[in-house]
């Protein structure tokens, strides 16, 4: 009996000892594969197709990092995580990077000991209701039953919103987006709340999307972005600049169509530095090859704008406008620090 306990404890400790190794880059290279934490399935952002190939807006970050580090965008192991399991998966080392529409908040950064490497989608929390309810504003939701994914910032925003507007509600807590969809469609809740982009993606997967309306109120700021563990600055730099490379590429007009041409050298020194075409070797500074950013852009399937248009943009069923997520030159918030 005691022996069994001892062996069990030994096994548990053995699992735990994989924790918190500092050099994530070396681990990933040795493994030959990037472990990327993604959503369990949110059309447009991260969802597997019939063949099990993952694609989407958040998945593109995984591919960009894998391409920059390993030179092959397909060398990614996608680990589906729920709102509840995501931080444990990252903290325990099960995933190297979490790319799963996670809101950048103070306490997650400071208290949970994670490093947000940037924002890949500026979002805000919204509400979706059935059109037949006749509700046109979130302010009319007094007394409603609201479905909410547990363990998310939306849960806290929801409480604050109803409190400040002096309204009451009854929460129905659910674990995954799929479960929320089912409960909402069955009428077990009057409203479904999550980030507006998530609502759009969820509605796009409904049989009758037109029966549902997303209310105009956006009740919070939700800067969504990928994150890594505290304490490995090199890995944070690699992932941060891999994402920045996608954004910078759009700003400079580098697309998947012209990237080969441009990487031979251009008049613009910043493009040269980004694509490793000039004298400067930015890749060496973060432990990667000279053309790391070029690989990242090709691996991700193009620059930020191309990825956006292909996965969640207005021509897709999800139909999100660029809005705040346009380049700073176009009146949006996307602004990457210079590549120099």
């Amino acid at each position, binding site marked *: 009996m*005691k*022996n069994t*306990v*001892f062996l069990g*404890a*030994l096994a*548990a*400790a053995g699992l*735990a*000892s994989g*924790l*918190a190794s*500092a050099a994530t880059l070396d681990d990933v290279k040795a493994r030959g594969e990037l472990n990327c934490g993604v959503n369990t399935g949110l059309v447009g952002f991260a969802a597997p197709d019939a063949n099990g190939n993952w694609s989407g807006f958040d998945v593109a970050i995984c591919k960009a990092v894998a391409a920059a580090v390993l030179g092959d965008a397909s060398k990614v192991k996608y680990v589906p995580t729920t*709102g*509840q399991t995501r*931080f*444990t998966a990252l*903290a325990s080392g099960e995933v190297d990077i979490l790319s799963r529409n996670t809101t950048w908040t103070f*306490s*997650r950064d400071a*208290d*949970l*000991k994670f490093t947000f490497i940037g924002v890949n989608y500026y979002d805000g929390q919204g509400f979706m209701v059935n059109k037949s*309810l006749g509700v046109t504003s979130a302010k009319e*939701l*007094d*007394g*409603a*039953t609201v479905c909410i994914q*547990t*363990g*998310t910032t939306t*849960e*806290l925003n*929801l*409480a*604050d919103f109803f*409190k400040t507007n002096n309204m009451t*509600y*009854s*929460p*129905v*807590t*659910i*674990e995954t987006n799929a479960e929320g969809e089912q*409960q909402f469609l*069955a*009428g*077990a*809740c*009057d409203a479904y709340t999550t980030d507006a982009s998530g609502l759009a993606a969820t509605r796009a997967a409904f049989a009758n999307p037109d029966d549902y309306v997303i209310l105009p109120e956006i009740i919070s700021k939700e800067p969504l972005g990928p994150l890594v*563990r*505290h*304490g490995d600055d090199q890995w944070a730099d690699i992932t941060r600049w891999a994402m920045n490379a996608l954004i910078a590429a759009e700003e400079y007009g580098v697309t998947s169509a012209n990237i080969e041409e441009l990487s031979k050298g251009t008049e613009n020194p910043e493009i040269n530095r980004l694509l490793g075409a000039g004298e400067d070797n930015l890749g060496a500074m973060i432990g990667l090859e000279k053309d790391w950013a070029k690989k990242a852009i090709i691996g991700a399937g193009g620059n930020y704008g191309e990825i956006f248009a292909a996965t969640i943009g207005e021509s897709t069923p999800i139909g999100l406008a660029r809005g705040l997520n346009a380049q700073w030159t176009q009146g949006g918030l996307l602004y990457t620090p210079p590549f120099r």
Partner: protein
Amino acid sequence: MATVSDAPKASFRLSMLIYDTRYRSITIQVVVLLLFMAGAAWLVDNTVRNLAALGKDFSFGFLWNRAGYDINQMLVQYSNDSTHGRAMLIGLLNTLLVAFMSCVAATVLGVIIGVLRLSPNWIIGRLTTVYVEMFRNIPVLLWILVAYAVFTEVLPAPNAFRGDNPTASMILFDSVALTNRYTAIPDPMFARSLGNIDVGLFLVSLDLVAIIAVITGSVLVNRKILASATAVQNATGVRPVTWWKSILVLVAPVVLLLLALGFHAERPVLRGFNFTGGLDVSNSLMALWLGLTLYTAAFIAEIVRAGIGAVSRGQTEAAFALGLRPNRTMSLVILPQALRVIVPPLISQYLNITKNSSLAIAVGYMDLRGTLGGITLNQTGRELECVLLMMLIYLTISLLISGAMNVYNNSVKLKER
């Protein structure tokens, strides 16, 4: 003269620790204990190091921070301004509520099914066999999910009750509404309430205290009446008629108190999106309760059947020979003797119910696992602290149930004099 010298004392050699049966068992135990302690120490050390590497500390201070989230079922008052510690209390009470409800219902149902399975009636015997085999051999999580799905998909949404020509209507004289979210039932209210007193952790309703006090008093007085009747019977051989006194003593004070307090039931009314005014019993609670009850009742039925089977057949025959009818035989002769076989395994079924109630997460019922181990864990990122606390609480509950049931077992087990 030769002196007899003592036989030389066998000197202790180290090898005796292994080869001498007097020492071997102790040696093995000491070695195992040392290994176990070393393993535990290594585990703790590993955890501390890794926490340090992650830059995290180990502290339960988060329990006093503002929770910030809402819970849809609370037995004592709670708002999103309350602390995480209080959210934990809400979850704990919800766990205890569903565990208690399930234990009671599963026991009643289990005893009935267990007895019926021994019925000489072929159909009843087969039906209960099917019930037992079906519920025992399918995981309890599936039963909970099935119950929840039935509630959600079959029952109408609250807005189906709206309008002049609603598609759904309330039952039991328009007082109960079955919806796909909850069952709205009338709420007992007091027009002239005595108010509440705050005992720090929660509010105590003085109305409830008064009612319990009056009922307790009535029962005590009734006992006195019955005792005096027995005394008269012992003395004279004629038992005086007491039934009207008993009814009067048991019923009149409570009714008078309720009237004085202005007792009435407030009916649920559809206002806005949901029913208000009544009590909402959530479907997640009902589904969890139903799933746990049906599942565990099948096990309890088998325990009861085994217990009855353990009572000698001669007991039944003797009871019949005395002229006792079968149901009196069962309740007066067989079941009391079967209890000493039934109670010990019943304890473990109660523990199972309590532990299985943590499956609440599947239907969004906010039990201890949902509050402390779910939302609090996630919002604060204190996985280790939350899980340790949760393990400690479940361990405590289990030990308490086990202790209380063992006291009961000692009181019903066969007494040999």
